[in-house]
């Protein structure tokens, strides 16, 4: 496993040596949504496709630049170098403008649209070991694991090395699901179900976000795939399927009361309580998530309290209204939510 990966890495570095100096950042492989830093065999093929296309493209652009420069350098002289006239020029137009593109584009067509296409397309469900269902909402992601009770939001945990069948749907408008380091995009369209295979070859957090303009807060609709070892994944999934932990301090108990009595429970579900609404994200294990508001804010005491008091400040237009809550109530709510691991 390690051998092939570093072999692939070497190949990539070798390709990168061919690059002009214009893209230093890409070559170092950083950028959390860098599609050229693949973490899956599928994305590796797409990245290779890019590097080759880019190399050929630079060559094509250099040829055009050369011909323009030649026109300028020979502006005082008529005819082509070597004395060619109209007939030679027309032959070159046909050769470079018709024949060369037919050959190179046919090759690209076969490689990309038949081979890479096949390797990266929607999986045969029997070839996968796990199905995850993602539903786009304005402006967050609902994540379900069919066959279990697990529901979460904006964080998609998958085991490293497994082929995961990701099923995408939408609850309202069109969204687009893309994890740049893992595979192609799929649009989430009303009345349709699109699928993609996710197959992380290394552990890590792979950021993505909505890529189809979906209204006011399209900019704040992030999500993350968390690829972890199969054992950790199993433990996580088992925990997600459980009901919420009962409050253990009086503060947390007050928080739960507030949650159930205030408007919170009108939209959110906390399994194991009387809050069953499914308008907003499921909060049964909200404290286990790294961020809130679809990767808009880190999930910390201060940001969580700020979010509860005024969601419209950081995400104007978000469907969650600002509630008129008192300070102690907010503190209790935060204490309760932070106990929901």
């Amino acid at each position: 496993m390690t051998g092939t990966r570093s072999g692939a890495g070497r190949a990539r570095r070798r390709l990168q040596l061919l690059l002009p100096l214009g893209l230093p950042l890409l070559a170092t492989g950083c950028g959390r949504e860098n599609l050229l830093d693949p973490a899956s065999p599928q994305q590796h093929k797409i990245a290779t496709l890019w590097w080759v296309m880019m190399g050929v493209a630079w060559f094509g652009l250099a040829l055009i630049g050369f011909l323009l420069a030649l026109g300028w350098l020979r502006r005082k002289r008529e005819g082509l170098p070597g004395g060619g006239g109209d007939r030679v020029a027309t032959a070159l137009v046909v050769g470079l403008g018709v024949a060369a593109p037919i050959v190179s584009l046919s090759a690209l067509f076969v490689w990309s649209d038949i081979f890479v296409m096949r390797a990266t397309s929607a999986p045969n469900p029997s070839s996968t070991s796990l199905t995850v269902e993602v539903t786009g909402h304005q402006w967050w992601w609902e994540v379900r694991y069919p066959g279990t009770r697990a529901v979460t939001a904006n964080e998609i945990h998958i085991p490293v090395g497994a082929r995961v069948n990701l099923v995408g749907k939408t609850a309202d408008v069109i969204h687009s699901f893309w994890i740049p380091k893992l595979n192609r995009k799929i649009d989430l369209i009303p009345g349709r179900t699109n699928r993609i295979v996710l197959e992380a070859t290394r552990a890590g957090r792979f950021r993505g976000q909505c890529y189809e303009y979906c209204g006011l807060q399209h900019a704040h609709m992030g999500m993350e795939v968390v690829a972890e070892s199969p054992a950790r994944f199993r433990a996580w999934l088992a925990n997600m399927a459980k009901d919420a932990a009962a409050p253990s301090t009086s503060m947390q108990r007050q928080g739960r009361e507030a949650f159930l009595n205030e408007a919170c429970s009108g939209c959110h579900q906390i399994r194991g309580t009387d809050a069953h609404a499914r308008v907003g994200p499921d909060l049964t294990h909200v404290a286990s998530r790294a961020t809130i508001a679809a990767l808009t804010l880190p999930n910390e005491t201060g940001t969580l309290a700020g979010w509860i008091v005024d969601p419209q400040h950081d995400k104007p237009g978000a469907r969650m209204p600002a509630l008129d809550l008192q300070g102690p109530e907010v503190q209790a709510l935060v204490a309760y939510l932070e106990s929901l691991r």
Partner: protein
Amino acid sequence: MTVLAPPVEERVELLDRIWEERPGVLGWLTTVDHKRIGLLFFFTSLAFFAAGGVEALVIRTQLAGPDQRLVGPQTFNELMTMHGTTMIFLFVVPMGLGAFGNYLVPLMLGARDLAFPRLNALSYWIFLASGLFIYTGLFVGQGPDQGWFSYVPLALKQFDPSLGPDFYALGLIFNGLSTTATAINLVTTIFKLRAPGMSLNRLPLFCYAQLAAAGSALILLPPLTLDLVLLELQRKAGFHFFDVAAGGSPMLWQHLFWLFGHPEVYLIVLPAFGITTSIIPTFAKRKMVAAPLVALAELLVAFIGFGVWAHHMFSTGMPTSALVFFAAATFMVVIPSTVQIYAWLFTVNLGRPEFRTPLLFVGAFIVFFVIGGLSGIMFAAIPFDQATTDTYFVVAHFHFIIFGAAVFPILGGMFYWFPKVTGRMYHEGWAKASFWLTFSGTALTFFPMHIAGLLGMPRRVYTYPHGLGWDGYNLAETIGGFILTAGLVLIAANLVFSRLRGAPAGPNPFRGPTLEWATSSPPPPYNFAVIPTVRSEYPGWDDEALFEDRRRLERGLGTYPDGHRQPEATVRDAYPDDVADMPSESGWPVAVAVLLSLMFALTLTSHFVAAGVVAGLAGLAAAAWLWKEPAE
């Protein structure tokens, strides 16, 4: 018995009297002169270009750094929607067809006007009214905010109860009438009003490009209009075309939209190709290499362009067979473009090019078009398309096409035909300076967008967080945007100053080979005192034919001095076959446009009965303008 021919001056004065239009503002309101209407199109679309440019600068300033709050999401989304809608519908297309096509096609054909002068006037007034209509939304706080592509269900009432999408949809239906009218006019003119002898194989390549663009406009607009009508029926009358629960589909919108949207790209760039194929022979001082192939390529681009629309929809989950078909068609559409690029390049190489400002813009156009074309090819590689679609990589790609490949020739064309339109020369030194400023600004604005896109930056976001590696590229793009703006302002200043103080240009300062250079600068209202006869592909270089035309003027042949008269010619070989009586100035086109505006405004506010009544009045006004005009 022979009547002695009066001298040339008298003949010209007679034509002047016949073709003279009212002076002053009223003259501009009632004009049917294609040159004046072309100028109206030019300045109006330029004003919309400025509006779209200001929107772009606000967008770029907001995105200069992460987490900026210069404007909120609502304003940003309105600006982003209006920027796209403005630049495509209110700037590039009316500039390419309405301004350049309108002004130049009759001159290049040796004609005195477009085939339907009053329709041409109507087309302008509708364009102006539709632009103001769409912008009214923005100014009354109901600006379209659903993106220029207006995907459903986001654009449905359920998700967007404002009037924004209605301003957009009705405004674009309205606008489509203008483009359709112009296109009909151009196609008819190119087929029927060519000077005797200008058989199709001698038709200037500029006119081939206009013909291809206008012809495709006629086919691509109906799908858009249909789509917009369905949208309005659903928004205003409760239909369910796009509603899944009622058996409709949001995919219907996308298919119809891109069936319009992709050919629209060629509608945008074809006039620019035409400008390029005018500028290159003039400054290379030789005929185009492979001219028949270039003409064929211009027509083929427009044709194949209708078979590639679904490459805008590769990630919607279409069946593989459909994906592969549209990818293959997309690869095919590359070939006519490469033919043209090499034909331009080898023409420059074969000749002894003089690198004056218009040729510089054309050179930059070739570079930008190749960059945008190469990244465009990559979108036919489906897996890569599905990775980069809706990222800034796409934004980079289509700005290289629409700004680099369509606007650069337009800028070059502005310098090239400036002496013809104004009779004065522009300042060459400042023009070159403004070229380099515009060129470097464009490269700096749009090239880093490729990298931001590969780093995953999505389109149409009003802000972005720090830490994703996007900050530096965005800052560079914003700086580039301001450099680009400085270049454009310098161009405008040069042209305004030269209009007032420039040296007199004479009829043909660049020794251009097409017929517009065979008449005075600026051309008289009737364009040519004597309708030229054409004996070659480059009549402007045919001194013998030009001399013959002057002799015919002296002898009083071919001046058609009895009324607004214009010879017609056979479609293929341009044998003279009839003489048309052209209409003169009229206020009816303005009246029809005003009534149509009122009709759209009433539809917008859901006063359907009143809108129907006004539509009837518009019909009556249209009938009134067809009334036989009094004899001269």
